[in-house]
Each structure stands twice: as structure tokens, then as C-alpha cells.
């Protein structure tokens, strides 16, 4: 039956004749191992064709999908990694076998007449195989393939005349993109394999025509191809396949046996997705091109073309000429030597390239003197660091693609989110964990430290360094004692490790830490030349360590002063965890909504509620906190440290919600949302930094993993963070707004700068009422009524006068007015009235002009002035205050010119001035004092003049 079928087919197809011809080729002197390489190459090619077609079915060539489809093959498709692995390693095996095949052909002189043409066909096949390797390397579109192939196509431009056009045609444009992939793929899967099939067919046909170039040994019997040579070939092919399979599983046989092969041992490596904007410092070609890569290092300058084009060209030419050279016996020996040298040379160059990259290990195993090879070691270390970073990115992208989000409503993890249409590179570019720290280093680390309490910094981070003063170009300045002199102010901003956490906030409320500054011991320069010179500035760079305000203008600012003044309130007893300071810390830190503290925040509800209350009491005369306090003097504490707050602060710290004019040198990184190209850092990148600082990034080990904020959310958040009051838009077509009048401006200035503590309202409450009235009501300040009020035992400590300030319990209120002036007889009352008259006359208010004139003429003014120096029961006014010639400055504000324009202006400008409160000043900012450093004053001189006039009720034009 079978026989009948065979005969039927044979009659029509002539199969048995073909098979007979194929199998019964005569081999003089019999089958040999050395003849197997040709069959192995055919076998390898068939394997590549089969695995390649399967890969083709799953591959999608475009810069948005190439990496993604290969990732899918590698990690998701059944057997995908195996097929890809075999394709990858068989390609390399093919190159090795091809080299052996060529060596065998030349060694045995199989290129000689009449086989010259077949030899040339072989050379063409070799070029095709190398071309397949080159084009295939790019297709996964990972960083490695992208950058290595970039170098290869750049080198193509070195070819004279046509080079640049060739490069353009290969790349499909000026830059790498979709068409680079479509073209490379068409070459790799279409043109080159088709040519290879054609040339292979010719090669084999000619081989059969001329027969094998046998190595004849007399007495060794002839064989046919079948069965002995076929057996040898089959063994060769199986061994080849076995080796390739071992490579595919990274020689992890036990892993395969246990059915538990780790991901890293599954087939070919896949790097991070190609990113043209991301430098890749470990770019190396596939190993069989390393010898060419290494060769380039030896041709300096414009001789590069020799290494890249001329030498390979010469080698190819000689290979081409081998049949001619081999006509003479000497020529044949030359050919043998040449091919051997070529292969040996390639092996040596490859070895050199590898040993340079891994020199760190080479030096260690050879026990080389490391000081002599500093440069090589440094280059090798750089390479290893870059390779590690590349591996890290490759691992991370896999985590990111498989990311799962915690669905709070369902109470479970989502499906893996896989890749959006923007591609895998988008995932990595927007990963705070890998990109955030790098961006922080780039944009923030020149001022901000990032160091944990144990003194550890992330890889690549270093402390801030301060350079010494110079006394010459490369010489440090030394003082009389020979100590190196450093410039007085080191720059630097708070350490942002754990920003917003309880530990961080506890630190800034610690009187010792808040303006602490320390210097590290300078380290000798890494450059031995500089290290040898004791006075070289490189040897005297010292680390500047300041956890908080240590190096900023805020060091002596209101916050630091307040913290020091309230040391007793803020004193932290480590053994207790429910003190006021604990409550404040917990409440403020809760605003940040850090994931790392979510547990604590949810269990400490009562403590936090108490802290909120305390913050509203103690902090809102400067800070806004929810509906308490107001903006203008200090950063908003509403949402302090939250994503929204931080995005607002980092994008524009000089915004009124944050530091306003008090901002010390921190750049507005993304102020202009309408023109993103004008910003120093994009909002997207700021979001990465903020997410990294706050720990808002995907971590597969988290129980409730989160995804970072998207660029769109980041943009919206910044807009939201800046919305502090009513919208500022104007109606289209509406008449332009009237320019602000002086009166309106004065009221606005008062509201923005003073009304947090001071009211300016009459007894009925008309006017501006402070949100949190704690300082004197300034309505009618300087008038007789006001002066009488502060001298009234009942009123002095009331809300309109010394109200909620520390002066409430001070000498003036408690020891003088409340005792000396209380329960007085009519005589004393008259004296108080006289004092008020005289004091008020100092102010020379426009509204009191007539009254003051009257007082002058009836002599009550003179009497009042005298009364200021007269003693009551225990004190006189001038015991503490200076008034005209009586009394001294120092213990209380000067009463000379009290309430006058000049007095008010000076007071507002600087209440800490020796003429006023000095150290006794309670929280009132020095509105007119600039600095320290480039910090502007809160109010300009003109604005202070205007405010003073307005408070005094002067007419404003």
C-alpha cells in the first residue's frame, strides 16, 4: 500500500532520484567531522527561519509598538521566551560556525579552481549573515539595540560619497523612528533572508556540482554521504541545538528540571525601552561585532575611517582575492595564515574590549597594582555602573508593566495595567522611583541635601560642598593660625529626607535643630596631582550639613526666632507621646497625607484634632491654616507637605501662598503654565520629584500599591494650588478696571499685611476686623480716646489693646496700668487725662488738630507733658519710656512723637529697633527690613508711608 503510494508519487515527482542524488554523494576517503560545518549552517539557518516566522507573527515594527510586542513575546506568550531565545542564541552560534566553516574551507584549499565562484558565494553569504545580525539587534527597540545600532549607522556616514545617503536610506529619515524599524525589519525578515536563500541554493548547487573537497588519506575507504556523514552531521546539528538550548536557559539545568526557571534565565535579555533622550552609557554592539568596536579605539581623530571602513574593506578584499593568491603553494600558505590571523585578531580584539569593560574584575584576578591603572579602572567602573543601571531599568519596566493598583472601593488589586498606547517608554519616563531621584539630583541637590538619619544618601548623591576662599588661582587662603578660610555664608537649604513626616516636623520645631549648621572634614582630592598640593582648593571642599534653615536667610528669620522663644512649649519629653508638641507635630504632619504614615494618621485621630486646635492658636498669626490666619507673612500650612502643596511650592515658591517676597533664592521651577517651554523644569518632572520625595510610586511589594500622578493631574494640581482667592479673569468687552485708588491700596495693604493680628474697626465693628485679633486695634491709633483706652485698667489687656500679645502679662499692663492706675481718685484721673492729651498731641493727627491747639493754648498740653514724668504709686511713664528729654531708650518704646507719621513709619519698618521693642517685640515682622541676603522687605518704603498715613486718617490723594 505504502509502496504503491510511493511509486505513484515517484512517477510524478521523481522524488527518489532527488533523494538518491542527495544521499549518495561520494566522499573520497570517507566521512569526517570536519565536513559537518556546512550542514550545521543550513540547520542553523532553517532554525532561524522557523523561529523567525513565529516571531514575525507576533512582532509589530513601529517605535510605539516594537518594544511592546517583543515584551509581550518574551513575558506573556506561551513559549515566547523559548522561541525568541533560540532565535537570539542560534544567530550567535551561526556566526561562530560560519567562522569555523570559512577556516575549514581556506585551510583545505576548497576555494581553488574550479570552486572560486562557490567560495565567493560563501563570502556573500557571510555578509548576509552579518547583516542579519546587525539588523536584528535593533528590532526589539530596547536601549541596548537602539544605541549600538545608532553608532553603526553613524559609521556608515564615513563611507565616501554615498555614505550619508546610505545612512538616510537605512534610517528612513534624519532621526531614528518608525521608518528605521520598518526598513530594518524589511531587511531582516524579507530582503536578507530571500537573498540568503538564493545564494545558499547556488552555493549548495555548485558544491554538489564540484563535489566535496576531500582530504584524501590513502587506504581510508570512500563513503557515501548516507549514512555515515549524515550521522556525523546530525550529531553536529544536535550538539549545536543542545548548546543553544543551554544558552537559552542560561545553563540553569536544575531550574528547567524543577520547572521553576527564574525570569532572568529565560532566553534573551530585553533591556529597557529605547529612549532617545536617555543617555545609555553601556552601549555595546553584539559580541561578534565587538572586535570592530574595539578597533575604533585605536584610530584617533580623522583616521577613524581607517578603523571603521578601510581596514574591514581591505580584509574583505583580501578574502575575495584568496582564490587568486592561492594559485601558488606559497599563496595558499599565506591564505591559511591570513584567515587564521584574522580570526585570532578578532578574538584578541574581542577579548580586549571585554577586558576593558570588566577591568575591575580583571585587575582583581590578576592582582594588578590598582594605582597604576586608575584610568582604566575608572572607565570600567563607569561601564559597570551604567550596566547595572541598565539592568535595573530593564527590571523596573517589567514591574511597571505588570503594575496593579489598589482599588479602595472593591478592596482588591486591579488587573495588571500593562502598557498604554503611549508606549512602554512613557511608563519609565514617568516613574518617580527611577526618574525622581535623578531629577532631584539634577535640579534640587545643589541646594537641598537628602540624607537619612544614619547619614546614608541614595547612590550617586553627595553632601553639599563648600569651597574655601582663594588666595590665587589654585591656592586656598589661610588665616594667621594657618586655618583655611571659608566664605562666611554657605549656601544650602533644608534636608528633604522625609519631608513632611513627623520626624521632619519635630526637627524643625526643635530650637537646636532649626538653625543648626555643621561642617564635615574636607577630603583630599580624588586627583592625585591635586591631592599632592596641600593648599589646592580641591583638597579643602567641606561638606555642609544643615537639617533645616541652617544655610538660608530664614536662619535668623521669624520662624527660627519663634521656635527658640517658645522652647518651653515645644520641649519634647521623649517618654510622653501626648504632649502639646506631639499633637502639633502629628497634626501638621497629617496634612501631608504621606503613605508611610497613613496607619499612624488614622489611629491618632484625637491627638491630631487637638494639634489642629493648637496650630490654630499658636501658628496662625503668621501662617494660614484652613480658615484661620491669612496669607502674606509665611507659607500656607493648609495641606502642608501634601502633593498639592508641594507641587504649588516647587513650581513657584515666590507665590503669595508660599514664601512670597520672603522666598530665599529657590527658583520658580515652573511658574509659567501657559508657556511650558520657558520653565526650567516641566510640571511633569516636578511631579516625579514630588512623588519620589513623598514615596508615591508603584512598588510591587506594597499591600496597597499606588500609581504615580499622571502629567495631566500634575498640571491641574499646580493650577489648583495657586487658586487662593477669587478668579482674576476679566470680562470680555467690559470697561477696563479703574486704577486702584490710594485709599483702596492702603486698605488692601492693611488687609494683606496687618489684619491677621490687628483690627482697624470702631466699637460697632465697622472697618477691618482681624481674623484672629491678637494685637491692638489700630482704629484711632494716636487719638486721645485710644491713649485713654490703653491707660485704662480694664481695657488695657482687652482685645483692643495688648489683647493676646505677650505684653498682656507685661509690666505695662500688669504692674503699671492694672495696679497704679486702677481705682484712682479724681486727681489721678485728671492726671491720666492730661497724659493722654499730651501723648496724643505727639501724634498730631489731622482729626485732632483743633483739640491739640486748644490744649496748647489752655496749658493742659504743658501739664500733661510734665505729668508723664511724675510718679504714680510706684512708677512714672518715663521710668520705662523715653519722652522728649526725660527717660532713656531701652526698656519700652519711645513716646517722643508717639503715633506721628515718622514714629509709625519707623515702627512698622522695624519694631525690633532699639527705639521700640528690641527683643521684647512679640511676633510683629520688621516689614521694611530687607535681607539677610537677597531677601526683599515685605513692604516698600512707599507702602509703609501710605499705611501710616491711612492709619492716622490723613487725607490720601
Amino acid at each position, binding site marked *: 500500500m505504502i509502496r504503491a503510494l510511493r511509486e505513484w508519487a515517484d512517477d510524478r515527482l521523481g522524488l527518489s532520484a532527488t533523494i538518491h542524488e542527495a544521499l549518495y554523494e561520494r566522499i573520497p576517503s570517507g566521512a569526517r567531522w570536519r565536513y559537518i560545518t556546512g550542514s550545521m549552517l543550513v540547520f542553523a539557518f532553517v532554525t532561524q527561519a522557523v523561529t523567525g516566522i513565529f516571531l514575525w507573527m507576533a512582532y509589530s515594527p513601529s517605535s510605539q509598538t516594537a518594544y511592546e510586542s517583543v515584551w509581550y513575546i518574551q513575558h506573556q506568550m506561551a513559549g515566547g521566551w523559548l522561541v525568541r531565545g533560540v532565535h537570539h542564541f542560534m544567530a550567535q552560534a551561526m556566526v561562530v560556525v560560519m567562522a569555523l566553516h570559512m577556516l575549514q574551507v581556506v585551510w583545505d584549499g576548497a576555494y581553488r579552481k574550479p570552486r572560486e565562484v562557490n567560495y565567493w558565494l560563501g563570502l556573500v553569504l557571510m555578509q548576509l549573515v552579518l547583516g542579519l545580525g546587525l539588523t536584528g539587534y535593533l528590532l526589539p527597540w530596547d536601549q541596548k539595540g537602539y544605541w549600538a545600532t545608532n553608532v553603526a549607522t553613524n559609521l556608515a556616514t*564615513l563611507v565616501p560619497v554615498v555614505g550619508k545617503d546610505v545612512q538616510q536610506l537605512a534610517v528612513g529619515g534624519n532621526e531614528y523612528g518608525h521608518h528605521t524599524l520598518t526598513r530594518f525589519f524589511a531587511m531582516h525578515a524579507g530582503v536578507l533572508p530571500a537573498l540568503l536563500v538564493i545564494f545558499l541554493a547556488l552555493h549548495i548547487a555548485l558544491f554538489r556540482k564540484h563535489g566535496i573537497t576531500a582530504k584524501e588519506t590513502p587506504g581510508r575507504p570512500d563513503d557515501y554521504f548516507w549514512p555515515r556523514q549524515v550521522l556525523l552531521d546530525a550529531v553536529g546539528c544536535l550538539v549545536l541545538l543542545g548548546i543553544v538550548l543551554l544558552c537559552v536557559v542560561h545553563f540553569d539545568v536544575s531550574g528547567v528540571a524543577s520547572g521553576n526557571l527564574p525570569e532572568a534565565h529565560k532566553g534573551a535579555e530585553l533591556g529597557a525601552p529605547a529612549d532617545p533622550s536617555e543617555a545609555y552609557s553601556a552601549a555595546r554592539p553584539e559580541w561578534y561585532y565587538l572586535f570592530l568596536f574595539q578597533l575604533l579605539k585605536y584610530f584617533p581623530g580623522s583616521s577613524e575611517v581607517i578603523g571603521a571602513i578601510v581596514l574591514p574593506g581591505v580584509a574583505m578584499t583580501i578574502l575575495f582575492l584568496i582564490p587568486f593568491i592561492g594559485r601558488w603553494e606559497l599563496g595558499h600558505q599565506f591564505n591559511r595564515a591570513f584567515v587564521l590571523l584574522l580570526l585570532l585578531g578578532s578574538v584578541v580584539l574581542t577579548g580586549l574590549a571585554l577586558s576593558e569593560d570588566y577591568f575591575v574584575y580583571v585587575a582583581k584576578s590578576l592582582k594588578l597594582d590598582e594605582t597604576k591603572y586608575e584610568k582604566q579602572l575608572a572607565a570600567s567602573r563607569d561601564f559597570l555602573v551604567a550596566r547595572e543601571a541598565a539592568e535595573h531599568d530593564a527590571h523596573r519596566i517589567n514591574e511597571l508593566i505588570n503594575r496593579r493598583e489598589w482599588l479602595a472601593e472593591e478592596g482588591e488589586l486591579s488587573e495588571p495595567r500593562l502598557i498604554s498606547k503611549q508606549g512602554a517608554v512613557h511608563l519609565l519616563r514617568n516613574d518617580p522611583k527611577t526618574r525622581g531621584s535623578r531629577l532631584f539630583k539634577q535640579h534640587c541637590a545643589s541646594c537641598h541635601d537628602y540624607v537619612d538619619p544614619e547619614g546614608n544618601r541614595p547612590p550617586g548623591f553627595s553632601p553639599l560642598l563648600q569651597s574655601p576662599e582663594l588666595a590665587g588661582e589654585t591656592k586656598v587662603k589661610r588665616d594667621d593660625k594657618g586655618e583655611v578660610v571659608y566664605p562666611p555664608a554657605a549656601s544650602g537649604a533644608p534636608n528633604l529626607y522625609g519631608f513632611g513626616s513627623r520626624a521632619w516636623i519635630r526637627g524643625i520645631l526643635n530650637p537646636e535643630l532649626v538653625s543648626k549648621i555643621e561642617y564635615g572634614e574636607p577630603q583630599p582630592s580624588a586627583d592625585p596631582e591635586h591631592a599632592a598640593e596641600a593648599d589646592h582648593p580641591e583638597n579643602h571642599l567641606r561638606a555642609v550639613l544643615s537639617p533645616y534653615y541652617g544655610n538660608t536667610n530664614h536662619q535668623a528669620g521669624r520662624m527660627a526666632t519663634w521656635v527658640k522663644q517658645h522652647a518651653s512649649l515645644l520641649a519634647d519629653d521623649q517618654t510622653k507621646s501626648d504632649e502639646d508638641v506631639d499633637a502639633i507635630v502629628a497634626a501638621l504632619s497629617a496634612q501631608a497625607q504621606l503613605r508611610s504614615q497613613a496607619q499612624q494618621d488614622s489611629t491618632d485621630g484625637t491627638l491630631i484634632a487637638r494639634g489642629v486646635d493648637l496650630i490654630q492658636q499658636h501658628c496662625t498669626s503668621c501662617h494660614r491654616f484652613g480658615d484661620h490666619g491669612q496669607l502674606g507673612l509665611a507659607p500656607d500650612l493648609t495641606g502642608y507637605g501634601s502633593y498639592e502643596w508641594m507641587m504649588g511650592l516647587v513650581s513657584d515658591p515666590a507665590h503669595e501662598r508660599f514664601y512670597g517676597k520672603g522666598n530665599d533664592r529657590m527658583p520658580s521651577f515652573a511658574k509659567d503654565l501657559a508657556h511650558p517651554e520657558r520653565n526650567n523644569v516641566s510640571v511633569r518632572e516636578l511631579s516625579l520629584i514630588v512623588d519620589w520625595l513623598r514615596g508615591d510610586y508603584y512598588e510591587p511589594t506594597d499591600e496597597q500599591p499606588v500609581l504615580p500622578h499622571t502629567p495631566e493631574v500634575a498640571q491641574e494640581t499646580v493650577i489648583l494650588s495657586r487658586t487662593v482667592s477669587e478668579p482674576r479673569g476679566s470680562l470680555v468687552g467690559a470697561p477696563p478696571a479703574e486704577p486702584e485708588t490710594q485709599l483702596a491700596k492702603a486698605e488692601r495693604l492693611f488687609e494683606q499685611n496687618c489684619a491677621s493680628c490687628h483690627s482697624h474697626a470702631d466699637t460697632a465693628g465697622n472697618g477691618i476686623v482681624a481674623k484672629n485679633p491678637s494685637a491692638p486695634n489700630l482704629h484711632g491709633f494716636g487719638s486721645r480716646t485710644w491713649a485713654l483706652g490703653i491707660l485704662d485698667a480694664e481695657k488695657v489687656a482687652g482685645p483692643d489693646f495688648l489683647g493676646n500679645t505677650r505684653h498682656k502679662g507685661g509690666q505695662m499692663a500688669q504692674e503699671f496700668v492694672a495696679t497704679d492706675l486702677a481705682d484712682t481718685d479724681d486727681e489721678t484721673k485728671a492726671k491720666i487725662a492730661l497724659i493722654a492729651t499730651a501723648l496724643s498731641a505727639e501724634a498730631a493727627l489731622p482729626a485732632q488738630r483743633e483739640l491739640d491747639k486748644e490744649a496748647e493754648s489752655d496749658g493742659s498740653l504743658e501739664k500733661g507733658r510734665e505729668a508723664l514724668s511724675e510718679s504714680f504709686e510706684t512708677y512714672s511713664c518715663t521710668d520705662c519710656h523715653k519722652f522728649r528729654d526725660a527717660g532713656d531708650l531701652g526698656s519700652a518704646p519711645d513716646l517722643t512723637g508717639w503715633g506721628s507719621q515718622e514714629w509709625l513709619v519707623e515702627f512698622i519698618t522695624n519694631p525690633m529697633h532699639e527705639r521700640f521693642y528690641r527683643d521684647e517685640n512679640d511676633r510683629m515682622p520688621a516689614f521694611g527690613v530687607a535681607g539677610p541676603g537677597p531677601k526683599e522687605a515685605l513692604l516698600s518704603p512707599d507702602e509703609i508711608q501710605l499705611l501710616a498715613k491711612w492709619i492716622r486718617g490723613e487725607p490720601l490723594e
Partner: protein
Amino acid sequence: MFLDPILRRKKKADTGEDSGRPFRRVAALDALPADGTPVQVPVLADLTDAWNREPNQPVGAVYLRKVGDQVECFNAICPHAGCFVAYSVDRKLFQCPCHTSSFQLDGTRILPSPSPRDMDDLKVDDSKLKEGEVWVQFVNYYPGHEEREAKP
């Protein structure tokens, strides 16, 4: 179709579209360290990849370095074979990770060097500099030659 990239380039050159390369803003002047340490910044422009065009994408990177009141600007691409040059803070050198070309801070190569020329300096707009902004004329050059030639 196959020759499209070349035809496209020729057409562009003929119509003169290629002549004026725009200056692009890359950084604010005060973002550069005063001590002359180079800073790597991306160059943003519309990125065209065949049928895709996206605004404000990184199309390359430059190193900026403040020297007195001037700013030096170098293309971050190595003039040897087109790798991405790194800056080594420890050694105060530009170093190419591929074929070990290294360059001094002012972009001159350290001989012997695989690189045929110094790093490619790019023009910085003086008038913008006075306004406190760094605008550079971003050009990629063909690597591998002593004379530099702009890529289209």
C-alpha cells in the same frame, strides 16, 4: 518610495526651508552653577516621527557652562561615533562611554583621542542671555570628520 528620505531632504534644501535654524530656549541663566560646572539640559522641540508629531519632546541634549557672563554650549553627542557623552564630576571631564574619547571642560579633546574634533559647540543667543535666558541654536553634526558638517 524607497528613496523618499533623500528626495525629501533634497527638496527641503532646494526650497531653502533648511537654511535658518531657530534658537531654542534651554534654561534660565541663574539655573547654571556659577563655578562653571557643566549642566546637561534637554532641548525641546516638535518631534516628528513619520506620521507622528508631538510638541515639546526632547530632541537632543546640550551641556551648558557658565564662563564669566557668557555661556558655553556643547552638543552632548560625541563627534566620534555619536554616543552620548557623559560628564564626570569626579574627574571634571567630559567622557564618552563608548570609545573612551574625553574632553576638557571647554570642550577640547584630550589627545590622543578617538574623536576627530573637539565637542561641537553651539551658538548661544547673546541678546537673550542679557535677559537672563539661555537660547541655543541646536544642530546635530555628522560624526567622524575633522570638519564638521550639519546633519539635515
